[in-house]
């Protein structure tokens, strides 16, 4: 419950500014002042990012971090998207944006599907040892992935998938199992068992109940899982930098290479535009689906 402090005392007969009322107003002023500082700290960087991306280089070098662009130009965006040099190729970010999409979309769909089936099996078709299986799968959420990097690299080379988008999809699907399984299992526990029992008596099978009864009851958890996995996979850097090559690199790797390369003149406006482009898909998801987003983040915070 909210702290019910500072309910504004009504004006009394003795006038508007009684000492009590003055104090309450002062408290409110301080409260909103603090909130303004908080808002400035969190929103300021995004504003600076956007305004800088529309400036010209001479204007950036003249300072004025917080100022709006004098002559707004989208040139930096055009360069970042289609012309900027990343490594030895100068085709901008568009190819890497494509890599990230081609990687993230199938990886998200497959891992959410697997997690849903696993969660359903564990929650609604229990068997001796189901709790142990659940614990063994979910423990994967806590493992720092550094401890599997070298063997994954060897495995991907053996399979001929090292440096390919397919290899990254495979890895994201496998290491997505613990979190998606946990998310769905915990949600499906709340689906009434009677529904399942009734359907089983009518002769319905495992998958029929899954697709016809359980999934239609769970749109919210599906959205949460999709957001969580998309954000995690789109934003991943560790697997991306370890197992991709220059032609299959996702956005995070390309962005880091663009901004932190030591070659050439640093075009900060291009860097800022590139950063916005890299952040845009997950940011848009957040703006559109904030409520689900928070649920996903809370569930996913344990993830490796």
């Amino acid at each position, binding site marked *: *419950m*909210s*702290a*019910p*402090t500072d309910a504004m005392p009504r004006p009394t007969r003795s006038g508007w500014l009684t000492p009590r009322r003055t104090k309450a107003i002062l408290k409110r002023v301080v*409260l909103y002042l*603090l*909130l303004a500082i*908080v*808002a400035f700290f*969190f929103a300021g*960087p995004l504003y600076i990012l956007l305004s800088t991306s529309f400036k010209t280089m001479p204007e950036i070098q003249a300072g*004025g*971090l917080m100022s709006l662009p004098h002559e707004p130009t989208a040139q930096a965006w055009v360069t970042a998207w289609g012309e900027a040099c990343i490594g030895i190729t100068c085709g901008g970010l568009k190819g890497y944006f494509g890599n990230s999409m081609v990687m993230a979309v199938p990886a998200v769909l497959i891992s959410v599907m*697997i997690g849903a089936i*696993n969660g359903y*099996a*564990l929650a609604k078709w*229990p*068997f001796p040892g*189901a709790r142990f*299986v659940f614990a*063994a*799968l979910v423990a*994967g959420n*806590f493992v*720092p992935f*550094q*401890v*599997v*990097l*070298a*063997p994954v690299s*060897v495995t991907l080379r053996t399979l001929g998938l090292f440096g390919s988008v397919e290899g990254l999809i495979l890895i994201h699907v*496998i*290491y997505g*199992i613990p979190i998606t399984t946990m998310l769905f299992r915990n949600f499906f526990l709340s689906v009434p068992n009677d529904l399942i029992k009734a359907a089983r008596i009518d002769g319905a*099978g495992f998958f029929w109940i899954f697709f016809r009864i359980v999934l239609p009851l769970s749109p919210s958890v599906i959205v949460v899982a999709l957001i969580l996995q998309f954000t995690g996979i789109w*934003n991943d*850097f*560790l697997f991306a*930098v*370890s197992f991709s090559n220059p032609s299959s690199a996702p956005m*995070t790797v390309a*962005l880091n290479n663009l*901004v*932190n390369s030591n070659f050439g003149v640093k075009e*900060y406006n291009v*860097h800022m535009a590139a950063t916005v482009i*890299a*952040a845009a898909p*997950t940011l848009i*998801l957040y*703006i559109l689906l904030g409520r689900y*987003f*928070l649920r996903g*983040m*809370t569930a996913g*915070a344990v993830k*490796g």
Partner: protein
Amino acid sequence: MRRFLQRHVSQVALSPSLALIAIFLYGFIAYTAAVSTTNSKAFPRFDTFVGLEQYWRLFHTPRWHVAFTNMFLFGGLFLLVTISLGLLIAILIDQRIRAESFFRSIVMYPMAMSFVVTGIIWQWLLNPTLGIEVMMHQLGFESFRLDWLTNPDTVIWALVVAAFWQGCGLVMALFLAGLRGIDEDIWKAAAVDGIPAWRVYVFIVIPMLAPVFLTVVVLLSLSIVRAFDLVVALTNGGPGVSSDLPSVFMFDMAFRRTNLGLSAASAVVMLGTVLAILIPYLYIETRERA
């Protein structure tokens, strides 16, 4: 066969996942642990068994010392800043304010950003020739200095402020949910007794949030051990190796210095650190439920 499948359909559906996790998680952890007992360089070679020598070597490597110490330094500061300010912001937002969802969204949107994006944003803001420092000079504060990125003694603060910016939203949301779960009668009783709000917070509400604190500490600690992208994008471990973290050390040894044995040992130490955080937490959680 068909009857077996029908009877054990649940196990059959789970078995591919279980097999994948058994190999790619538990098998690979064992593999890395095995590599850490060898003198492998560019490729894993199990005929070069050296026992625990890599661990001895690891803790005698100055760079690992910096990285390992930094993990605790960064971790301690990050926990302190994020928990205290995250709680404070949650309390501010909980004062029946106008436009609450607006303020909540502003604190939380950085969660959607990757650590690479976060690192680049703060690298720009902390850039001494173009960022906040110049802005302050132009505002008339000529002596203002913000040299976190170029000063090995304070570079850890650059990591802390960027990680806080990205992670505060989640912590704030968890605390806000905790505050909203507290019985309203407590506030009414306190108001009747004339107890000032800050005392209610310090002596009643915050102690009641103990489970949230535990969750937050564990979540943040796990993210500290794994922190990697942020360092790569923001400081790349520099100046020198002053902002190195175990994950960066591990990556460098594995993929750039071709010292797989040492890298595996550092990865196992990271896993050990996670277990040292997790086992007491799970112990407390299960004991409380019993």
